């Protein structure tokens, strides 16, 4: 695997494997390399083996306080382990596959509807690739475990997934299940909103109105279940709003997912 190793720094993306294995890439490089990893089995194998080597470096042993153990064993009772990944090709990293969906509600649940024309064109410029696909349900449902609402959406037979890829390497996918009546957004390496701003989600009603929904948590990788009724929603939008969110969009969507049905 090292036979064709580049000997100079160069722009060879394969050469990023070592820095990636020890979390030493710059954010944009990390996104680029993770995209590369999905297509390059050599790099996946190399990263796995280099992580194995790096893990050996951390040989110091420091026993954490006993209270930490007690706290953890209590905490896990409130957290359900994720189901196995659906068999959908290789996974780049074991870390942060799907962060928990921290609940970041709007100041209050807003029922007010706003009439806003959809500014999809602006969003389309930002979007490099858009594709829709039917998700496979889990190969093997876990008996005896309770799925969260978000997981029920992701596992639903009728789940539709729309992926959007941003020029900075971020990915954000919307998964909607009409039967569950809910939508979930999954982000991967999404740059934080600018200081004082937040990403806000919107559900488009069949009448074409945008209904305010949750704010995205301040995490690069997040899984967020939208509050609103997605059984008949015709779209999901993301805008940048002042911290705390808005009743109606104050800017063009940075992404809009059309859920025609």
């Amino acid at each position, binding site marked *: 695997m090292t036979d064709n*190793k*580049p*000997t*100079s*720094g*160069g722009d060879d993306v394969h*050469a*990023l*494997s*070592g*820095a990636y*294995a*020890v*979390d*030493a*890439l*710059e954010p944009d490089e990390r996104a680029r390399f993770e995209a590369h990893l999905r297509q390059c089995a050599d790099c*996946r194998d190399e990263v*796995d*083996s*280099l*992580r*194995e*080597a*790096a*893990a*050996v*470096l*951390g*040989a*110091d*042993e*420091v*026993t*954490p*306080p006993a209270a*930490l*153990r007690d*706290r*953890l*064993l209590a*905490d*896990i*009772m409130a*957290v*359900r*382990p*994720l*189901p*196995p*990944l659906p068999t959908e090709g290789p*996974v780049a*990293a*074991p*870390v*942060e*596959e799907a962060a*928990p969906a921290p609940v970041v509600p709007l100041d209050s649940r807003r029922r007010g509807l706003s009439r806003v024309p959809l500014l999809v064109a602006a969003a389309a410029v930002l979007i490099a690739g858009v594709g829709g696909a039917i998700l496979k349900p889990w190969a093997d449902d*876990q008996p005896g*475990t309770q799925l969260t609402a978000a997981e029920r959406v992701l596992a639903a037979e009728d789940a539709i997934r729309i992926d959007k890829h941003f020029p900075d390497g971020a990915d954000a996918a919307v998964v909607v299940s009409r039967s569950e009546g809910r939508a979930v957004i999954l982000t991967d390496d999404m740059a934080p909103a600018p200081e004082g701003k937040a990403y806000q989600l919107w559900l488009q009603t069949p009448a074409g109105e945008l209904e305010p929904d949750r704010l995205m948590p301040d995490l690069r990788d997040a899984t967020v279940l939208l509050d609103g009724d997605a059984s008949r929603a015709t779209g999901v939008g993301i805008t940048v709003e002042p911290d705390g969110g808005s009743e109606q969009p104050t800017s063009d969507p940075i992404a809009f997912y059309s859920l025609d049905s």
Partner: protein
Amino acid sequence: MDPVQDNPIGVPLTGAPLGADASDLGSLLKRASRGDNEAFAGIYDATAARVHGLVLRVVRDPAQSEEVTQEVFLEVWRQSSRYDAERGSALAWLMTIAHRKAVDRVRSAEAASRRDETYEQRNHTPDHDTTAEAAQASMEARRVRAALAHLTEVQREAIELAYFGGYTHTEVAALLDLPVGTAKTRIRDGLIRLRDTIGVGR
């Protein structure tokens, strides 16, 4: 590039790479993914000292390190079904999660203190002494030290700054006065040599 020497040190460099109960950990993870909290306690007891040792070394602040270690194990619990034995040992999987969380913590703390303009040079002074001295006289630590002796000085420094310092390769290049873009190559070459010396991962 200097040639890889024969093992000059009378310490075995190969063998069960990451602890004897590596396969055991894998089956504990499998049980944990089904909600078995006793299995999880077993994972914790077998690995908490290793994980916390790494986190503490990267994060340094004891209180923050405890938070990160707690986050790591919560993540291990949540993600337990995602561990894939074909891709590596369970301990390496855990340490990868721990390292990522620790690095995220130091970087976000750094960004926050930069915002507060209390950011100081101290964050850019690598603590070589603790890095070198902290390794305990365990067999494992001796193996690691022996393996590190096979690296060039710049490879070793680059890996330590990245792995224990939590610096990006660009920052490592600046710290070591290397041309931009060469630190990542040093890190990769060093890790490959480390891997091949210790005999893990392949």
